[in-house]
């Protein structure tokens, strides 16, 4: 979240070799060539998205429903569920992600080639959901970048399909002129969490989820479970 300087295309060498700023793709300014190429490339990309189903829990079952006969995800160009991240375009993270699984999720995201997008399906993947506990990642956007959040616990297959259509809409708006910033990947960030410590701490702050429920049975005397940070200031 703090790498805008590195992403800035002006500070980095541009593609092409025509000597113009931004090369033949006309950096920042659309040209006749780029709009037509954009259209063709985006059309091809958005209609053959191959999802990488990173299904862990309940949402994975709804993802299977979406792929099965009644809802038929294949209508939208997602005929092939790509179980190998090397041949995938969209990471659908369906279900809760514990800390033990976090490095696996990050590894799979790093293994996917550009261009790639990601969908966070369900409340647990998006925010931790009801599982505000010791073992759970509070939202996968601390681990990987997320393009679309699909709410629900679990979301219906229609909701997932809507989320994927939103990805398609996002692709429709992309342009090759911004290729460098859109497709930029920091090699230093491989295997590292997406969010820095302050972002993660903000998640577990006073307005983190289920703050009033972190007290066990009132009859068990013991160490106070409530942390000072949980109280609303």
């Amino acid at each position, binding site marked *: 979240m703090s790498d805008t300087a590195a992403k800035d295309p002006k500070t980095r060498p541009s593609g092409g070799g025509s000597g113009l700023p931004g090369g033949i793709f006309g950096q920042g300014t659309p040209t006749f060539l780029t709009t037509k190429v954009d259209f063709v490339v985006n059309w091809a990309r958005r209609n053959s998205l191959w999802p990488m189903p990173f299904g*862990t*829990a*309940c949402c994975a079952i709804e993802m299977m*429903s979406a792929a*099965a006969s009644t809802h038929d995800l294949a209508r939208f160009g997602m005929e092939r569920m790509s179980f190998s991240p090397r041949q995938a375009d969209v990471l659908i993270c369906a279900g809760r992600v514990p800390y033990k699984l976090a490095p696996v999720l990050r590894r799979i995201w790093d293994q996917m080639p550009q261009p790639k997008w990601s969908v966070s399906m369900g409340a647990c993947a998006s925010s931790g959901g009801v599982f505000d506990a*010791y073992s759970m990642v509070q939202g996968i956007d601390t681990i990987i970048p997320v393009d679309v959040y699909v709410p629900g*616990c679990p979301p219906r297959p229609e909701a997932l399909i809507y989320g994927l259509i939103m990805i398609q809409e996002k692709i429709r708006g992309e342009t090759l002129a911004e290729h460098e910033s859109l497709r930029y990947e920091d090699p230093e960030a491989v295997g590292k969490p997406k969010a820095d410590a302050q972002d993660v701490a903000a998640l577990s702050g006073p307005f983190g989820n289920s703050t009033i429920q972190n007290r066990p049975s009132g009859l068990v005397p013991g160490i106070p*479970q409530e942390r000072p940070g949980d109280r609303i200031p």
Partner: protein
Amino acid sequence: MSKRTVEYEVSRTPEMGMDFRPAQGPLSPSEMDDPILSTEKMLINVGPQHPATHGVLRLVLELDGETVIRCLPHIGYLHSSFEKLGEYRTWNQVIPLTDRMDYLAPLIYNCAYAMAVEKLMGIEVTERCKVTRVIMMEMDRIFSHLLWLGTWAIDVGAFTPFLYAFQQREKVYELHEAYTGARITTSATRIGGMMSDMPEGWAEGVRQWTNQFPRTLDEIESLLSHNAIHIGRTQGVGAIGPEDAVNCGLSGPNLRASGVPYDLRKDRPYYDYETYEFDVPIGEHGDCYDRYLVRIEEMRQSCRIIHQALDRLPDGPMNVDDPRVILPSKTDLMNDMESMIHHFKLVMEGVQAPPGESHFSIEGSKGELGMYVVSDGGSKPVRWRIRPPSFVNLSVIPRLVEGGLLADVIMVNASLDIVLGEIDR
């Protein structure tokens, strides 16, 4: 007093002959000392993100050629701290956690938890509630087995049964949704009853579904049961004997496929299961194919139970008349002060269970599902423990796959019918 009625006996397919013997197995490692034949050992990592591990199971396999000589399962990749969370929720607030644990058969888990707490509190639910829960549990047994059947078929290389199974599952989803408003995370039970009475026409919807469902099952079975590829990949694979199976703690269809007639609906009947007429299918070889046959037949028997339950569904109240657990009616709530206070206390403090503990086991779709709740008299459990059937079932996987082929690992894993949400909890 023997309550068991084992009439149905699964047998080998006639095409394969009654004296079917498993195909010649792979060479055991001890036979591999020939320097020309022996190969270097190799570690293969399967999972945690692998389409055929049915979740985030991770198996580390040590291979000698194609033979698995060692299998090390790693679990915990979906550890969501259910039991810890349960200690911070009131008794009724735990129910939404239960259906996120086994998302393949959520209603069975809802019911099992409610039953354990009701036993702890000494509550006997009403007849109508009992029969409703029986319908729901049997429906979800089929629901869970259908998903197993679809993924099992994919693992064996057939895609069509998956589509057929999901078509039927969609109909159960609709029934879930009609009753509870949710497709998977149902949270249908409450301590002492259900979230509401049945919606109008729901029982009729279940009956219609139960009537047409066996035809789909026949169709799927005709695709698989006598299919040479399916038979070749499953018969004689991953076999386990009855003594071993009991000693390893297998339960449910996996145990019964090994020939052990242990079904909690017959052995320790709850909810008047002894008055329903149904058979418990028992396998004899304990291999993957027998587990398949047992589950297929269980679905048919569940249909029988649903029909009987629908026939006997009594009228009357759904919830018990017990002010400790059940909220007053809205009319009372709006009209007299006592009901208002009662409602307020139940909502704000939650149900209070007496000090004590109870362990209640039911026959889940995966096996013996035990709920162990410990109370200190407060409004939250001191300990909420789930006896996870697939957790124990999965722990035998090294014994089943070691010495077999790598390709058989997938079938053995599929035949155990695991759900990682409940293994890792």
